[in-house]
């Protein structure tokens, strides 16, 4: 099921800015995200897209602005709330998939352990059930379940990335942030990963915010996209609209520069 919900936004970003001294990381970004929606943040190197993602996901404190996340308790400003609450929400309701899987995995812990650990952190204690869940998730990300006891260094980059996705999704988050999840991977590996993401997002009604420099990834996965340049959001809208009818000169340059979108 991939219904775009008609309820209130899941995430509301308002006037988010991050400065490094006088250098603009990102400036005055406002955007809403609905449940089940996939948003791509697109831009070239130095555009501020990773800075924006880090601020929205709570990894970095912005200079100004609010990031209002809605859950069953109501609305929480992830910027202003205390660290304990932010961590608790990140652990149980959000996911973060890093560009380098080594940043998002415990390299000395088995694949099964990596998937099971977030469950245990949320209070699960039944070892048998945790292992069953880990096996099911290895299947969902199309990995060989016989390798549940292998450690991440024994896997390829693409497999590590799939393991990272499983580790993030096992707690059934509503919203997952991804920074260049397919960069550095061979194209066939990229394709498989994107297909898995597309399928899982649809099945789970998962909202995703994906940073990418690759317009084709945005076209394939995202309902909406924003284009970043030098810290500013120069264009935003439906993905097909931004790519088929780019309004801003920089967006036109990007679209005309790629081989095929």
């Amino acid at each position, binding site marked *: 099921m991939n219904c*775009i919900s008609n309820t209130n936004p899941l995430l509301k970003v308002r006037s988010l800015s991050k400065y490094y001294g006088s250098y603009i990381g990102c400036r005055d970004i406002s955007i809403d995200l609905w449940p089940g929606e996939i948003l791509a943040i697109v831009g070239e190197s130095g555009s501020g897209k990773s800075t924006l993602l880090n601020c929205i996901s709570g990894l970095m404190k912005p200079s100004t602005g609010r990031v209002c996340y809605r859950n069953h308790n109501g609305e929480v400003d992830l910027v202003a709330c205390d660290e304990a609450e932010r961590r608790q929400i990140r652990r149980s309701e959000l996911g973060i998939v890093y560009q380098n899987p080594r940043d998002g995995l415990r390299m000395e812990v088995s694949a099964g352990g990596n998937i099971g650990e977030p469950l245990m952190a949320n209070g699960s204690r039944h070892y048998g059930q945790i292992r069953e869940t880990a096996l099911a998730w290895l299947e969902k990300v199309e990995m060989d379940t016989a390798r549940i006891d292998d450690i991440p260094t024994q896997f390829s980059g693409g497999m590590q990335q799939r393991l990272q996705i499983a580790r993030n999704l096992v707690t059934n988050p509503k919203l997952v942030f991804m920074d260049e999840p397919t960069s550095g991977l061979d194209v066939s590996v990229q394709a498989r990963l994107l297909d898995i993401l597309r399928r899982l997002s649809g099945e789970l009604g998962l909202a995703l915010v994906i940073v990418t420099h690759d317009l084709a990834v945005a076209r394939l996965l995202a309902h909406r996209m924003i284009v970043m340049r030098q810290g500013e959001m120069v264009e935003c809208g*439906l993905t097909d609209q931004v790519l*088929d009818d780019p309004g801003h000169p*920089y967006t036109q340059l990007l679209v005309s520069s790629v081989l095929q979108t």
Partner: protein
Amino acid sequence: MPLVHFQNLCKSFNLYTQGNVRIPVLQDFNLSISRGESIALTGPSGAGKSTVLRLLYGNYRVDRGRILVQANGGQTDVAAADPHTVLALRRDTIGYVSQFLRVIPRIPAIEIVMEPLIMRGAGETRARTAAVSLLERLSIPQRLWPLSPTTFSGGEQQRINIARGFIAPFPIMILDEPTASLDPENARAVEQIIREASAAGVTIIGIYHNPGLRAALASRTVTLAVTPPERPAPGNGLSELSLPVT
């Protein structure tokens, strides 16, 4: 109250990376469409027929004007709607069959056809049954159903496009050259599908180059003319952004 109302619609394309060329396509385009009507847009190539359809679907951005659509007991201006609203319109109100099938590789044809029903919450079995029925009707051989349409012929791809477009009922259907790549027999099958939708009360806005098809399907024809190019103004260049010249 019309179901779809284009009001003083203006659309130009500004090609900043190609010498700042500005191509005006629509200037104060007005059209009212009542519920259940079947309209055909005609006119020479470049007149803006596909542009009108894409603006209604939210695929192109409006420069000025409004596109009012009656939906969900209210009225929405597509030109001013936020992306979330447009996505909801595309899910429930406006169906679109374009000239080209933009294919996601590696997805089987039958799943591409099923997807609009799945997105409305239909179960897999019901969606599959509906897809099979349409694929059979459009003479797509069963051996092709589990394959990705990337290697299909143009005609086969277009029939997948049609099946995907018609599997879920929409109050409004936008058809851009639905029979373009089809042989006469398949074109007749598609014509029949469109007739049935029209008879069921679907409002249809279509572009049909084939005059026979247009006459058979459309109760009203609207003709667009090519907008003449503007005289270039002196110093009509882009100043706020310096882009590398390649």
